[in-house]
């Protein structure tokens, strides 16, 4: 139609196809984030916000700097990361193994799926007291709690991933007499990578929740125990600094998984 003149007898058709296209604009995100911080800082400076309960962003930044300088932050974060790393590794390896059995064999599916379905809804932190009874108050109970939290989403995303590998690709490989082991390595394993990586993303956030919870229940060092102690002592600036540190850790883990997705799933 164009924008040219419209004669008397003609009527321009009005546009009605807009909206429903909420594309984010990064600059707006930064401006909004800065505005919230500025408002918060202004509220604290003006005395509207009680700094004992919610310290100002500037005080939190100072506390964070002090925690970094004293080495306390990395001592606590290091202990938490070691627990997450070990628990995640154990949970992920066993999860992929059981998920693989459920995805590939009728026996594995018949025996394993009811087990997964029954235990998946149990909040894993609820098992910590039992695990402490079995394994003692040391590292093992916390690591196993994290491993259990990671195990289920990884197992589920593994067998769901196998279910979603297009059967025509498997039939194609069979039609060329590709041996079973090669079908698993060349067709199934690359085919489940998207699902496994989204399982990693979910399980990493579960591991973070569980490590903080477990450390609040029984640990002397670790970010969870640090948060609990600072809360008890009303050191809210340090408490908030700890929360910021966990948020940054979560973002870094998310960024690592996004990078893995870009590298491993470049074919999508």
């Amino acid at each position, binding site marked *: 139609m164009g924008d040219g003149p419209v004669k008397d007898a003609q009527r321009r058709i009005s546009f009605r196809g807009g909206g429903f296209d909420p594309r984010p604009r990064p600059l707006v995100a930064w401006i909004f984030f800065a505005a919230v911080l500025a408002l918060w800082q202004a509220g604290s400076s003006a005395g509207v916000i009680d700094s004992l309960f919610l310290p100002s962003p500037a005080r939190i930044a100072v506390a964070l700097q002090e925690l970094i300088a004293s080495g306390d932050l990395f001592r606590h974060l290091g202990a938490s990361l070691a627990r997450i790393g070990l628990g995640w590794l154990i949970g992920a390896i066993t999860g992929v193994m059981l998920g693989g059995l459920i995805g590939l064999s009728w026996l594995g599916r018949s025996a394993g799926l009811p087990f997964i379905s029954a235990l998946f809804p149990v909040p894993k932190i609820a098992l910590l007291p039992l695990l402490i009874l079995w394994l003692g108050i040391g590292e093992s109970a916390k690591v196993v709690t994290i491993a259990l939290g990671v195990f289920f989403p990884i197992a589920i995303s593994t067998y769901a991933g196998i279910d979603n590998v297009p059967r025509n690709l498997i039939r194609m*490989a069979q*039609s*060329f007499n590709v041996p079973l082991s*090669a079908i698993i390595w*060349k067709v199934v394993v*690359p085919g489940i990578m998207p699902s496994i990586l989204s399982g990693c993303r979910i399980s990493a956030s579960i591991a973070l929740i569980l490590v903080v919870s477990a450390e609040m229940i029984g640990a002397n060092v670790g970010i969870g125990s640090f948060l609990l102690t600072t809360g008890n002592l009303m050191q809210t600036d340090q408490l908030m600094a700890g929360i910021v540190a966990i948020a940054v850790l979560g973002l870094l883990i998310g960024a690592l998984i996004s990078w893995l997705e870009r590298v491993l799933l470049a*074919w999508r």
Partner: protein
Amino acid sequence: MAFELVVSGLSHRYGALSVLEDISFTIRQGEILAIVGPSGCGKSTLLGIAGGLLRPTAGTVSVAGAMPASLNPFTYIFQDFALLPWRSVAANVRLPIEHHPVSASDREKLVSDALARTGLSEFAGALPKQLSGGMRQRVGIARALVVRPALLLMDEPFSALDAQTRDLLMGDFEAIWAREKTTAAYVTHNLHEALRMADRIMILRRRPGRIREIVPVPIPRSERRGAAAERDLVRIHGELWGLIREEAQLADREIAHG
């Protein structure tokens, strides 16, 4: 001695649904047999059984005579190409021969030869997502050619492509066929395709799928696109359409159950 694929007394059921019933026919070495019929007549099931991907409820598929040497005698070309999206074009074509005891240099030679025969040499490193539908099916054809198949089983190989690409690809395939004389079973619902490619056309009726008729196309493939053959082809097309029209209408009006 030439070989024949002999399908004898084949029946297949999916639960209570009888899909194929008492199908018997042969495919002779060097010929292309088109299998045509309305939706739901069991064409793809028949092809799956012929190449050993499906186990029939009754009947046998066997080979009489000696088959030519091949790394995979019964080789499929799939409607949806069935390419591994994480592998490059060359790696997809290499897949069928990776488990054969062939030296690495011979393997690469086989792959580059198959790519050259299908006009894909310059796309060897591309990923499937970077290719058009026509190019993807060329990869499917190259992957089939790399094993030097004795019998090609083609399941609606061009039906996922637009009309122009289909025409181009059929032309390519005719040229390949003229060189290699590969035996093929060619499933299609498109009578024009069948009349262009096949030596004989097997018409299936549906529910249960039975052979209605096997019609020869008595015009050499190389002459079918000329004006002289047009009248004969139109006549055969009319006869074939008469055989499947009623059932195609029934298939079109059917409500899916289950």
